């Protein structure tokens, strides 16, 4: 299904519509740019209707506990105040200003303008991501072409159609296509209409976009990451157990499926003995967190069991590295590894424990420099500043408490960038 200028069309009409879009875009660009308030109003109405249960039927395919957590997040993050705050944090002051000029140079006026047309290629790995990416494009006043992920089940399209229903002014700024990624011709056509391409996904997806994008188009890439937790001198912390419980709960909650999830726990030590003792101490805490977090949905539990059992079989074939030193617990395990590589765990609450003394931090992490994002840090207060700096210098983007690795912090950047800032241009007019 295609959403084009507020109306839906069959996918087979894609090429005709893309040809038409080429003529439509200049007409829209020639008009007064879309005001952020129009978008904020539409999103806030969507928030109100979501909370009132208007879309419950659409959310039926998602696990119940996830729906509740999404609603709680929507209640806060999609409110008018929070959206305005987001604009302010990410774009700072967007009002026009004039420069002071310098001896021998003309003065200019600086204005913030939308990039123009943004093509969003959204990954299917997070619920609501396609709609979210599009909303960011709208907030910055852009015309948005959204290519839906193949796994999209119609939820994104329905939410986006709602936005148009609330604010018909958005009609000219939203075009949604369900083009499969294999339709290179269609993708190229969309790319050729765009000033910027925002792509979310695996390196393979990003690579494919780089290859097909016209030279000169601005690429806005959101790639995949691996998270870890760094643990230092537990014996010097009075609240060590509390911190470890919080980390265990983070692992149990995210099941290690997110970019920010903890895959590896690094111990600031070279001692094998210390690593083992840590693993033995952590395993029962993880087991308890997993038990507490155990969903009642048998389908989810069974799926998780199958995933880790399948990973175990693959390990036997040497496809996935396994360590023979594993502390197995009900529904989880702690795998004691003898290298210090940052790598993916078997996920589903099967965490790796490795040695990584402080003085080798940068040397080890540089190997994964393009995949660094979140590090949880559990350490004595007096070490926190020093270790945070060491992690940031090694390339980390977020340093959080152990239990908050996947938390959202209003005002945070995404992979080191403020997304909205990449969707605008600063223009200069000579005075």
């Amino acid at each position: 299904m295609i959403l084009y200028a507020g109306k839906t069309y069959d996918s087979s009409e894609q090429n005709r519509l893309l040809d038409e879009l080429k003529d439509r875009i200049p007409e829209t660009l020639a008009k007064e740019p879309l005001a952020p308030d129009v978008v904020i109003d539409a999103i806030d109405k969507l928030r109100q209707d979501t909370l009132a249960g208007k879309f419950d039927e659409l959310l039926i395919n998602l696990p119940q506990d996830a729906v509740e957590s999404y609603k709680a997040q929507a209640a806060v993050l999609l409110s008018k105040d929070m959206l305005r705050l987001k604009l302010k944090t990410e774009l700072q002051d967007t009002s026009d200003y004039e420069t002071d000029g310098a001896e021998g140079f003309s003065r200019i006026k600086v204005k913030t303008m939308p990039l123009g047309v943004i093509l969003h290629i959204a990954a299917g790995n997070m619920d609501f991501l396609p709609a979210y990416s599009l909303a960011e494009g709208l907030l910055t006043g852009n015309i948005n072409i959204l290519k839906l992920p193949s796994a999209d089940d119609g939820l994104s399209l329905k939410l986006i159609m709602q936005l148009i229903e609330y604010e018909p002014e958005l009609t000219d700024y939203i075009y949604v296509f369900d083009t499969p990624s294999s339709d290179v011709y269609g993708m190229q056509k969309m790319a050729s209409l765009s000033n910027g391409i925002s792509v979310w996904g695996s390196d393979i997806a990003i690579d494919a976009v780089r290859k097909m994008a016209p030279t000169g188009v601005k690429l806005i890439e959101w790639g995949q990451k691996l998270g870890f937790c760094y643990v230092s001198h537990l014996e010097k912390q009075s609240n060590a157990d509390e911190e470890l419980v919080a980390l265990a709960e983070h692992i149990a909650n995210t099941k290690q499926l997110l970019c920010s999830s903890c895959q590896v726990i690094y111990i600031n030590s070279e001692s094998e003995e210390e690593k083992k003792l840590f693993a033995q101490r952590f395993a029962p805490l993880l087991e308890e967190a997993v038990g507490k977090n155990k969903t009642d949905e048998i389908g989810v539990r069974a799926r998780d069991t199958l995933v880790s059992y399948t990973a175990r079989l693959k390990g036997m074939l040497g496809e996935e590295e396994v360590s023979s030193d594993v502390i197995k617990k009900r529904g989880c395990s702690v795998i004691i590894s003898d290298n210090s590589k940052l790598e993916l765990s078997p996920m589903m609450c099967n965490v790796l424990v490795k040695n990584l003394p402080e003085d080798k931090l940068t040397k080890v992490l540089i190997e994964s420099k393009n995949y660094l994002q979140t590090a949880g840090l559990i350490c004595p207060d007096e070490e926190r500043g020093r270790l945070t700096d060491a992690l940031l210098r090694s390339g980390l983007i977020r340093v959080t408490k152990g239990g908050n690795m996947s938390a959202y912090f209003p005002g945070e950047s995404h992979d080191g960038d403020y997304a909205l800032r990449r969707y605008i241009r600063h223009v200069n007019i000579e005075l």
Partner: protein
Amino acid sequence: MKLRRKLFSTKDPYDLSKDELFIGACKENWSYLVSHCEDYKKISDGLGVKSVDDIKSPENLPIIPTMFLKQHDMRSGAYIASATSSGTSGNFSTIRFDLGGLWADLKMALNMSTYHKILSPRPCRYIVMGYKMHRGNKTAIAKTAFLTTLLAPAISRKYILKFKDGEYKPDFDGVMEAVQKYAKGKIPVRFMGFPAYTFFLLQMLDEKGINVTLPKHSKILLGGGWKQFYKEAVDKQTFYKLAKKVLGIDEENITEYYGAVEHQILYTHCKNHNFHVPVFSKIVIRDPDTLEPTGKDQIGLMNLITPLLTATPVLSIMTDDLGVLHDGSKCGCGIEAPYFEIIGRVAPSEIKTCAAGAADILNGAGK
């Protein structure tokens, strides 16, 4: 594969005295697999099954999840045909058949169909609520749907899913038209295929106020599971009542099959609409957290065991289905073999993860 031949020649599919023959055939199959498939041997070793003596009962056999087969192709020895699972989510597994396995399969299918009175010499018209086979579609369900139309001579076959412009689309209007036309004739009609499509068709007929009485001996044969419509699965009684109302087909003429491409046993409903486990296979229900056997009347993952094939190590597989096993006597149809119910499926296996993508690339880059 002497014991396999003997097992699959069993005339009474629900003969309870074949347990020893069954475990013997499993050991025979296992011994073949470990000597013909290195990966299977590694997995067997890894799971602690190192010799036939480690196999005390079918539940000791190394379990291979279909999820694993979809990610990792395994073969063992010669094969003459292959089929792929219909893969609702993009990934699919390839299952290869050896000649002996194919013969055993055919014998089993004939025995089951005879026992359940589905074989009929009376010609009929088929309405296939599934795929039409074409060169690009190797899915087993398309083949099964076609093969099932051979259980009684076919005068015509009409398919609901048509391949048009590169994809399958359901043609409900065409089928509704055919139903009304066939109702006026004397030749029995057999519906065959996905329950979900069949139920939608019944609902559409009902909404349009089309109520017909199809000729005597018409049947509805359901197979292939509820697919992605699992959430809309209706309770059986609603289905039967609607079939009676809009097509005039009685409950006893509605039969459901269960099977998987990785486990080619043609489970067939008894007269009380239950799937009893025949002598050709065993089903072990396993705890969704620990994979330990749960025993009767408890929901868990379905571990399906049959020594049917040698060309693919599918001796003991675990599907994505959740089910429960009951004592045969509870059914009341007269078959004493235990019967199972499918309760649902595990959550979608395409786990939404971004971390895994990053790791794939890191591993690739390191090479």
